[in-house]
């Protein structure tokens, strides 16, 4: 009797111990997963901060061999590309999101929803090839427009799915109240429902901006990069990401230093957007990934 009892309690102890070990392992995994985040951010600051100065933001890239210079054109290029991509992609994405939310159960809506989800998984370099074939070739050269279209293609499914989710969060009673007052359906959808969801939709748009601002691959053979100012939408243009890429794989120490500075600025912009948005919408907004 005593023997079985002690065997029993040993077994209990073993189970408890095993459980504690496994819980410990999950905590360890979480700690390990966060290590790269701090390492990357730490190196960015320690290697990049010294090269981020006034001329980095205001000067053009210096020719090989000359030190100094900055990324003024690349910074402006990033804003230009992303701004144009928003102008093209956000209206399409939001309208498509409204359609999906209004026709929740429809077969076509379901097919489109699924396509949007699948499109989020299309490798961004493939989008670059697509825009090379459909924009760069017909228009006769690399251009700002082609780069912006590539980014817009990436944005559309992200914005669509977030817009849909946000609109679905709007209480149904609100819609019914408006309809009961005799407001036409389209005004209800646009001015009551979509407007109520506006801050959520804006969140989704900003997260999509953060995502495409960090894209390099789809720009390589659409926007192409440019060491000078781009004065027309049909000219190639630089972006922070492409400039960092070019400088990082170059053999020149001065360029590599600038690559760290560019990466720091880029990461700061992207993380500021991400953190800012999440902080502003501390609720439980579910955003498409």
């Amino acid at each position, binding site marked *: 009797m005593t023997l079985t009892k002690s065997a029993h309690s040993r077994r209990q102890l073993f*189970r*408890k111990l095993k*459980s504690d070990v*496994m819980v410990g*392992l*999950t*905590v*360890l995994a*979480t700690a390990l*997963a966060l290590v*790269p*985040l701090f*390492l*990357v951010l730490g*190196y*960015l600051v320690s290697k990049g901060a010294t090269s981020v100065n006034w001329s980095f933001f205001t000067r053009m890239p210096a020719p090989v061999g000359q030190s100094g210079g900055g990324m003024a054109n690349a910074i402006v290029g990033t804003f230009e590309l992303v701004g144009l991509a928003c102008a093209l992609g956000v209206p*399409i994405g939001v*309208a*498509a999101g*409204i*359609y999906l939310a*209004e*026709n929740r*159960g429809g077969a076509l809506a379901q*097919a*489109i929803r699924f*396509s949007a989800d*699948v*499109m*989020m*998984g*299309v*490798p961004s*370099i*493939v*989008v670059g090839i*697509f825009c*090379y*074939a459909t924009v760069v070739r017909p228009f006769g050269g690399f251009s700002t427009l082609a780069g912006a279209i590539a980014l817009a*293609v990436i944005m*559309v499914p992200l914005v669509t799915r977030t817009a849909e989710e946000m609109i679905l969060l709007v209480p*149904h009673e609100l819609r019914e109240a408006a309809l009961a007052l005799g407001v*036409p*359906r*389209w005004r209800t*959808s646009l001015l009551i429902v979509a407007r109520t969801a506006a801050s959520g939709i804006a969140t989704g748009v900003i997260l999509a901006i953060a995502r495409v601002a*960090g894209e390099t*691959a789809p720009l390589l053979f659409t926007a*192409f990069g440019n060491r000078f100012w781009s004065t027309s939408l049909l000219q190639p243009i630089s972006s922070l*990401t492409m400039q960092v*890429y070019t400088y*990082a*794989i170059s053999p020149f120490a001065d360029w*590599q230093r600038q690559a760290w500075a560019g*990466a720091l600025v880029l*990461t700061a912009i*992207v993380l500021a957007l*991400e953190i800012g948005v*999440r902080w502003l919408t501390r609720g439980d907004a579910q955003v498409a*990934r």
Partner: protein
Amino acid sequence: MPRVKTRGFGVRAVGDRIFNLTTLAMALVILALLAGLTAELFRHALPSIKAFGFGFLTSTDWDPTTDQYGALPFIYGTAVSSALALLIAVPLALGVALCLSEMAPAWLSRKIGFMVELLAAIPSVVYGLWGIFVAGPWLRDHLDPLLAKYLGFLPLFQGPQVSVSMLTASVILAIMVLPYISAVCTDVFRAVPRSQREAALALGATKWEMVRIAVLPYGVSGIIGAIILGLGRALGETIAVAMVIGNSPQISASLFMPSATLASVIANEFVEATSTLNLAALVELGLVLLVLGLGLNIAARLMVYGATQRRFQKPA
């Protein structure tokens, strides 16, 4: 959302119709883009498809000077780097997801979950830069010698140790896909009904036993979906990989050697393509990538839908 037929006439009905058609048209843009992507890539890959046929996928020749193109070294590079990345990332991601959904208190779980998500927010070119100058050299100096010493009998860990290698690319990829896998897994675990857990605990299960009995089996299809989703990310990742993998179209057993992936070779050679056939071959690599990406995503989404929608069903 129940559809209410508009009963009005005149302006009202016209307004509704315009609104419906506009939103429908924009939604159709998504279908058009997806179809257009596939069609355009196929059209531009046609010269290469005609010239090499199925041999394109099995040939190891990649030589722009003789206009001979085979995709096997890149398919191999993509497959090995992605598989290795998942091997590293999946156990960690599962640990993170379990910690966030089962172990940590809600307030801490939110904060840590957010930090893990930030990993996904860092641009890939930044990971590439960090890989070139920090992670690559560190792996070469610290991890590679260890692997060579204790596992050197395997052909995987033999030969010269360089900082731009399959191993470096896989480690960077692992860091990049981890947040995607853990985020989906966390959602999947949170969708497991509370009653399942309570039943296990009521039977005297320890915390880990509860996870094993009640949570993991319930989430299996969701976990597989999350892994496939991560695989899709890993396959298509371009810039970070192109920066650290060394871009050499060779198949070598050693993970210490440079390699190349479908995406990385497109990034490197597309602009410098010397002939129509060269360009077509690169587009065909893109087509392979697209087909793989679409196939994996369709499979993954179906599995994740299944796992996270269950919360709406009645508990059995």
